[in-house]
């Protein structure tokens, strides 16, 4: 079956790695030869007073060692030349009085026996093996400073603990020391980490928690009594359409998700089940599921189906693998990036680059001053952050950076983002500069129509002109028609495909994929010195690490920490800090982001509040009032020149039918009236977005528009009604925001997060209408500021839509809200 079939991408340390710190340089390690021990240790001191091998021997009371077979002396047991004593605390070198010959001799008795004194040996110059708490450095090398800094930073206390543990369990590892008990709270994320092992010890358990939660959610989220509509796709595969009801806390279905569809059978049908991929979601959230094997599907049945999620561990496994690689493979990232990520104090570094004369790129719009500044700065830094507030041309700037990076001759550039949508957008822009771009998609997403289809690897494989192309095309067609190939043909098909894929990937200037996609086995032998991650503020740290550990020396993180962060389902993991992106932590560590400052999206009236509130007033307008005047649209704005208002709503919130969400009927009714007014004045449905944080309200607004909307049904169907989160990264001409919550005593839920408010307010180009209860909202400081802003502009209004009047409603004093 078509599967992402991961090879084991885990990297492990060799057996001879120092059991304390992981250093695995053959010249620097020795093996403890005590029976039941046989562990390897290095001759570095790290953060302890004795070298690791000496610390071990002293703590464990072991005394015998041998050298590594690849060390300069080869595999050698250290023992007294005369009596065979192997106690390294007694051994030392002596030289013969001539011939430059040396041997190891023990201190007691061989050295102290008087009868030896007059021999050929210079006994007075006995040089002990162990001196200054480490082995003679010319016998067992001390690892370089670089090696030592890159190794696990084990402390004396940890050494004592692990030595204690080894007494009862010789196989125990340092990870076992850190393992939390079953009911323990997970260790929270830190600002700085001693080493990559500690980093892994913190993030590993958090990823595990999130994976377990995700698995639990998916496995318990099966829905019964689903009604199916059958169709056949262009590729002749069976597609089942159905509505998949969801609640506030449910996972959002996205294209590429794997679902299992079953029917229990009836008098004339036997039971049936098939797995498929979601290939599309309609605006009404109808799911199109392409079945992997549609043969025998009961297409004459429509009712009584069950839908289940198929959980996949791939993304979590790749995060864990990336953290492990980061720890044990010193070539995974440059030293600079390694220490930067761990929060060590590193001296600033500049890349030695010849800057181009122009920083723009062919096929892209001319860059503005702050964009040029951003590109220029970034090209010279090994680690940089670009903050792109809404509408500031983040994607164009990123594409220009990638264009310039690709021209520096450092090899292929890897471009990633956490979401497929963002990767597609960026791939398209980069491709406009004429660079050779390959968009690598997960195999489970190959059936999903992509706006950059022609850039995808699977498309290029099918359309590549090579000698064995005909063969591959023939087999592909056969496979498409029959659903499967004979095992010989399948083998041939796979080999041909793999070769073609490798060739196309190797010829690319830029490879674009999701962060998780960077862990695809098809990239495992590639190295990328330059990596750009867009939307990096929406990725967890371990997710960002996946593209990094393919050899990064120069890293560009693009994002905006004032907008929504990564979605973490497991509250425990979120509370421990998994929702904090690497971008944010780097800011806390003092990396200054370059901020793009000119926004080209919002009417200047709409950008004023977000600029002041979230960006210290630095956001400049690249569009003017006249650019954003829709004179043709006849809408009753309370102040004709200001396309915004806060529509005071006093209707009650109620709990939705499912019992897990909220809705607000008055607000919904007014949303419908506003939408109808827009539509009547000639606004296209695709220009309008309705944002509401609650699933209950979303469903209610959709059904209300369908029931009472006086215009053609299709118009309402084409209006997107969705959560704040699903609007992130996108824009609409007009945004209607329905806040829903209206109670005196409880909180305002989702609206409490300033970053969510920022996203909601910055989606619109031409106009924004907020519906909510000021009495309730004003208690939250940020909402209070927003309400005052609307009031000052005389656009805090109430009354019927065709006769809006300024509202005199009293605000409450804001109080500090503890999240």
């Amino acid at each position: 079956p078509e599967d992402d079939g991961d090879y084991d991408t885990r990297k492990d340390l060799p057996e001879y790695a120092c059991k304390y710190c992981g250093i695995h340089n053959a010249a620097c390690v020795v093996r403890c030869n005590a029976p039941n021990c046989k562990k390897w240790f290095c001759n570095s001191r790290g953060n302890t007073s004795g070298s690791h091998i000496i610390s071990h021997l002293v703590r464990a009371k072991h005394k015998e060692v041998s050298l590594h077979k690849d060390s300069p002396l080869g595999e050698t047991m250290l023992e007294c030349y005369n009596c065979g004593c192997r106690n390294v605390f007694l051994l030392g070198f002596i030289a013969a009085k001539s011939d430059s010959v040396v041997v190891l001799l023990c201190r007691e008795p061989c050295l102290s026996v008087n009868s030896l004194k007059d021999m050929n040996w210079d006994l007075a110059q006995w040089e002990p093996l162990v001196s200054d708490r480490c082995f003679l450095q010319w016998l067992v090398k001390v690892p370089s400073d670089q090696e030592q800094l890159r190794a696990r930073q084990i402390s004396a206390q940890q050494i004592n603990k692990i030595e204690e543990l080894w007494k009862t369990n010789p196989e125990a590892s340092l990870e076992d020391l850190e393992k939390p008990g079953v009911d323990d709270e997970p260790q929270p994320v830190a600002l700085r980490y001693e080493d990559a092992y500690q980093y892994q010890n913190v993030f590993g358990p958090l990823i595990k928690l999130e994976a377990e939660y995700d698995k639990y959610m998916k496995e318990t989220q099966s829905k019964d009594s689903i009604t199916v509509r059958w169709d056949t796709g262009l590729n002749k595969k069976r597609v089942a359409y159905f509505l998949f009801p969801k609640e506030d806390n449910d996972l959002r279905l996205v294209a590429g998700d794997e679902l299992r569809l079953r029917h229990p059978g009836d008098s004339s049908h036997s039971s049936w089940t098939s797995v498929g991929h979601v290939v599309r979601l309609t605006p009404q959230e109808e799911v199109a599921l392409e079945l992997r094997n549609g043969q025998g599907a009961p297409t004459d049945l429509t009712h009584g189906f069950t839908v289940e999620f198929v959980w996949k561990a791939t993304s979590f496994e790749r995060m864990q693998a990336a953290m492990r690689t980061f720890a044990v493979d010193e070539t995974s990232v440059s030293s600079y990036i390694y220490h930067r990520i761990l929060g060590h104090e590193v001296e600033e570094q500049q890349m030695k680059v010849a800057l181009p004369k122009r920083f723009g790129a062919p096929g892209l719009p001319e860059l503005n001053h702050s964009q040029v500044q951003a590109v220029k700065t970034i090209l010279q830094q090994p680690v940089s952050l670009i903050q792109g507030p809404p509408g500031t041309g983040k994607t164009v700037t990123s594409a220009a950076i990638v264009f310039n990076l690709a021209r520096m001759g450092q090899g292929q550039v890897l471009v990633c983002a956490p979401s497929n949508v963002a990767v597609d957008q960026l791939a398209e822009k980069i491709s406009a500069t004429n660079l050779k771009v390959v968009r690598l998609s997960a195999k489970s997403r190959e059936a999903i129509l992509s706006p950059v289809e022609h850039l995808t690897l699977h498309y290029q494989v099918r359309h590549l002109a090579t000698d064995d192309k005909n063969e591959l095309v023939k087999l592909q067609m056969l496979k498409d028609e029959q659903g499967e190939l004979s095992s010989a043909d399948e083998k041939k098909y796979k080999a041909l495909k793999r070769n073609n894929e490798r060739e196309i990937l190797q010829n690319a200037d830029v490879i674009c994929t999701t962060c998780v996609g960077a862990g695809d086995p098809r990239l495992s032998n590639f190295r990328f010195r330059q990596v750009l991650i867009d939307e990096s503020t929406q990725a967890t740290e371990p997710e960002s690490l996946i593209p990094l550990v393919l050899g990064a020396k120069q890293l560009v993180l693009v994002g905006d920490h004032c907008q929504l962060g990564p979605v973490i389902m497991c509250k425990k993991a979120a509370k421990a800090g998994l929702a904090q992106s690497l971008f944010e932590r780097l800011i806390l560590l003092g990396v200054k982001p370059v901020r793009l400052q000119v926004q080209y999206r919002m009417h200047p009236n709409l950008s004023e509040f977000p600029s002041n509130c979230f960006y210290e007033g630095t956001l400049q307008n690249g569009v003017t009032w006249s650019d954003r005047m829709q004179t043709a649209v006849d809408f009753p704005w309370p102040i004709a020149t200001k396309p915004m208002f806060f529509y005071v709503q006093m209707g009650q919130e109620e709990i939705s039918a499912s019992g897990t969400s909220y809705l607000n009927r008055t607000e919904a009714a007014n949303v419908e009236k506003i939408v109808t007014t827009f539509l009547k004045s000639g606004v296209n449905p695709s220009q309008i977005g309705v944002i509401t944080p609650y699933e209950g309200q979303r469903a209610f607004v959709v059904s209300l528009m369908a029931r009472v909307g006086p215009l053609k049904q299709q118009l309402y169907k084409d209006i997107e009604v969705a959560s704040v989160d699903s609007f992130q990264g996108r824009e609409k001409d007009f945004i209607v925001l329905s806040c829903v919550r209206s109670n005196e005593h409880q909180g305002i839920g989702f609206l409490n997060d300033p970053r969510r408010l920022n996203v909601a307010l910055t989606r619109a180009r031409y106009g924004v209408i907020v519906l909510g209860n000021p009495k309730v909202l004003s208690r939250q400081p940020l909402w209070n500021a927003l309400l005052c802003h609307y009031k000052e502009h005389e656009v805090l209004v109430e009354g019927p839509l065709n006769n809006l009047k300024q509202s005199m409603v009293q605000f409450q004093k804001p109080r500090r809200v503890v999240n």
Partner: protein
Amino acid sequence: DEYVRVRQRAVSAEEEAEFDKELRAMVQESVEARKFEVRKGAALELAMPINIGAQKPGETTAGPEADAPAGGKAFRLVTRRGAKQQTRELIVPASSRLAISSRKKDDAEREE
């Protein structure tokens, strides 16, 4: 290929003193144990290794010479497993006690 400077941590004096004590105890113990155990069996006459005169230091094949630090001195380390004797090249830095004493000997021989 790159040089990165990173802040380093210090070891506490307390920990250092404690470790020193344990290390000294370990050496002391080893010495004491041998003192009473000796003089039975082991030949106490240290014989000059045989059959190694033919090879000059620097000509042995064991051990890469590239690692020889500037100013280092090459010795031949003789080891034995039972009756079998092996020679390996050992590069010793000029500042080591071995190298210094050997240099003194060379000088003394020249003066004679």
